[in-house]
């Protein structure tokens, strides 16, 4: 148990640093952003306490905010998807249910399941993020376009990361 926790803490910083040092500079066509750090939140073990989930979501979002100079935005969006995550996981239970200590990754449940699981959450995260950043709906279509392109970009990178680093099959 402790070993897993330590692993998660290290991964937390890996995702955070990768996001703020490298992906912060990667923006396609001024509209498509990549927020790979969401992947860390998505693949936390199924059994994690919901309070801990939201706590981790808040901490990671807040840390990203410090670098993005947008205090509260990423934290807000991350806490929201961490709250929705468990309901979404429950309604997507694969045949035979989740094993104890299973993680909702692609290696575990297959690419189709993973896309259905990840994409709506990424979309919600980005929609909340960009509309709150724009401060309302006065630039609706432009912001929506940003949300859609960013969702596709982030999802593509998440799938790629899952293919390259499948993690241990437990």
């Amino acid at each position, binding site marked *: 148990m402790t070993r897993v926790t330590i692993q998660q803490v290290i991964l937390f910083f890996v995702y955070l640093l990768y996001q703020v040092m490298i992906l912060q500079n990667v*923006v396609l066509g001024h509209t498509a952003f990549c927020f790979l750090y969401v992947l860390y939140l998505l693949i936390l073990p199924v059994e994690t306490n919901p309070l801990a989930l939201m706590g981790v979501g*808040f901490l990671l979002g807040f840390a990203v905010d*410090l670098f*993005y100079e*947008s205090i*509260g935005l990423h934290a807000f969006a991350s*806490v929201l998807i961490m*709250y929705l995550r468990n309901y979404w996981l429950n309604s997507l239970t694969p045949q035979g249910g989740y094993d104890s200590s299973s993680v909702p990754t692609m290696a575990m449940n297959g690419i189709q399941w993973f896309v259905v699981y990840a994409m709506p959450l990424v979309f919600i995260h980005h929609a909340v993020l960009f509309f709150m950043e724009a401060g309302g709906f006065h630039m609706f279509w*432009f912001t929506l376009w940003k949300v859609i392109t960013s969702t596709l970009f982030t999802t593509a990178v998440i799938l790629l990361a899952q293919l390259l680093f499948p993690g241990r099959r437990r």
Partner: protein
Amino acid sequence: MERLFLFVYQYRAFFTFVVLEVFCFWLIVQNNHYQGAKFFNSSNTVVASLNNFSQSIRDYFLLSDVNRTLAEENAELRRIVEQQKYVMERNHQLASYDSAFATRYDFISAKVVNNQLDRVKNFITINKGKDDGVEPGMAVISPLGAVGKVKTVSGRFAVVTSILHIDYMISAMLKKSGHFGSVQWNGRDPGFTNLNFIPRHVKLAVGDTVVTSGFNAVFPEGIMIGTVSAIDLSPESLTYNITVALSQDFRKLSYVSVVRSALKEEQDEVEKLVDEKK
């Protein structure tokens, strides 16, 4: 009983959710304004040092551009100095020399450590802070044009509100005709900004220069902002919709100068008195 516990357990999760989201929302609202001192920002030492490191790698790719800009600026400044010398010699007896006015602007050179351009509210972090005399409210310019205004400072770093910030307005004027307007970004393309409130009787053409006006005392008068790239005038509108191509390419921003205006406080005080009288 078990169900009751389950219910309480779920309720607790919801409660935590609400508390966290309200807290986040409070943070967002607190930090919404583009100016004013805030506690959490990227002038924070740990964050700024990391940004500094990442920028030092990026710097290598910008070196040739930076060199060329600096050399051009040097040549331009030397030319102005020579002209001024000549004028000074000619007018030595006539000119009444006001030293307070002549030295009203002081420049602090700084390096950009973090630069945003694709968000709606963009900020720039620079590597000079309170220790070097940088204070909130000072103007930041580059050799090629206006950059922004200092928002917050820590000991060694400062965060600057970029002119690519949707809420930030700068008083500007058309250099040719001297008409005043205000420059405000629309949140889309980081290469262009908008010039508003130019009345429809003004004659203007694509390519006209837009510079800062001396109205706000933050920017020195006549700092380049950009050139007019598109003009739109709808039949019923009283003012033009003018698109301005920024002279400073923000993607290549590397070295900037912070402008310390010695007379800013005096001007602000006088103007405040007028406002209070109204």
